[in-house]
């Protein structure tokens, strides 16, 4: 989006001011010898291109196809996820919670923005927003409605508020009609939101 079609000119000018402030701050800290700008570039590149929800999708698809992995994942999420190479910051202690026909899980951090980075990347704006953080612990069905999703009234909903350093990953239910699919193809069905609990995996007809 260019500055010409930006809907909030006021916001835009504030962003520019902040942009200048941050650039100045970075140059002060670099001049003082506290920062290696190449390290900053690498940090950004890591979370823009390497660490994101495709990691979590691989974990889910593996659990859908490998019963032994599924069992390990629910017993010790951190270790099972590390088997696929995902570990570290904001994923030091991961608990996987499984959706079933009778229970749907949803994850939030009402106090800040805790989120399982190694498998989902950085959290989206809505996850960090006041409406989500305030509403999901009281009216999760209303939140699901905001995402265009609905659950049967009889389904139990379990909301996990990430108040400590345990990070939660939802293992969604495998869509019907995917019997015999490869792990790679199954992973294409797994959306970020389905691993937070604010959505469901795609249906087979939704992918090429």
């Amino acid at each position, binding site marked *: 989006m260019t500055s010409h079609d930006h809907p909030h000119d006021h916001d835009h000018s504030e*962003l520019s001011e*902040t*942009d200048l*402030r*941050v*650039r*100045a*701050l970075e140059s*002060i*800290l670099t*001049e*003082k*010898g*506290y*920062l*290696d700008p190449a*390290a*900053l*570039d*690498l*940090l*950004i590149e*890591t979370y*823009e291109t390497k660490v994101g929800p495709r990691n979590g999708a691989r974990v889910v698809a593996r659990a859908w196809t490998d019963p032994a992995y599924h069992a390990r994942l629910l017993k010790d999420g951190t270790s099972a996820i590390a088997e696929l190479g995902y570990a*570290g*910051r904001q*994923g030091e202690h991961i608990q996987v919670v499984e959706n079933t026909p009778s229970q749907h899980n949803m994850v*939030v951090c*009402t*106090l*800040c923005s805790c989120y399982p980075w190694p498998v989902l990347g*950085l959290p*989206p*704006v*809505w996850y960090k*927003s006041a*409406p*989500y*953080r*305030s*509403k*999901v612990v*009281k*009216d*999760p*069905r209303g*939140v699901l409605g*905001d*995402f265009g999703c609905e659950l049967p009234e*009889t389904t*139990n*909903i*379990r*909301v996990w*508020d990430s*108040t*400590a*350093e345990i990070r939660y990953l939802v293992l969604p239910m495998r869509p019907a009609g995917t019997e015999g699919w490869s792990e790679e193809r199954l992973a294409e069905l797994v959306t970020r*939101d389905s691993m937070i609990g*604010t959505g469901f995996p795609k249906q087979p007809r939704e992918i090429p």
Partner: protein
Amino acid sequence: MDGAHDMGGVAWSGPVRPEPNEPPFHAEWESRVFAITLAMATPGGWNIDMSRFARENRPPEDYLSKSYYEIWLAGLEQLMLERQLIAADEIAAGKSLHAAKPVARILTADNVEATLRRGGPTEREPARPALFAAGDRIRAKDIHPPTHTRLPHYVRGHIGRIERVLGCHVFPDSNAMGAGEDPQWLYTVTFEARELWPDATDPNLTVSVDAWEPYLERA
């Protein structure tokens, strides 16, 4: 501390607004603030609880009027000011005016991958047995510490059950103050919606928080 960051159950108008194909950052400055905050923890020596407290310990009107990464920027500036890594006149002038404070080490590019990989595990060897066991009925204490805490207001005073014992973990209330890790037993505590929300209409909702032992009492 009681503050605007503690949002669970607060009446809030308007829906959650998902953004299709959302990028990791919405402006270059957001990505720089994110990276500077992560990198400055090495020379700065602060821990995650200190950085959370720096972001949250501000007047509600300030917290609520800032965007997410504006809060990160404000928290970062505060952490650096407190440690004399930068001075207020330097932030105002946008340039370095004073000699740098010597630091033990910085985050260099060749260390980024290993640092992220290592993360900051918080589980510690327990010094004593856990007070509670799975199935125990507990009450979250109705406490309002003026300093950092991770017990959300909406469970305070309410009765729940211990669902899982999660091991002994660094206690944020102490760690945020620079008073040491003081590891405490951590539990997943589950509450029925009708216990938390008298006006709740959904009988099939349960909510859990992860709570350290000092937050809980037997009920």
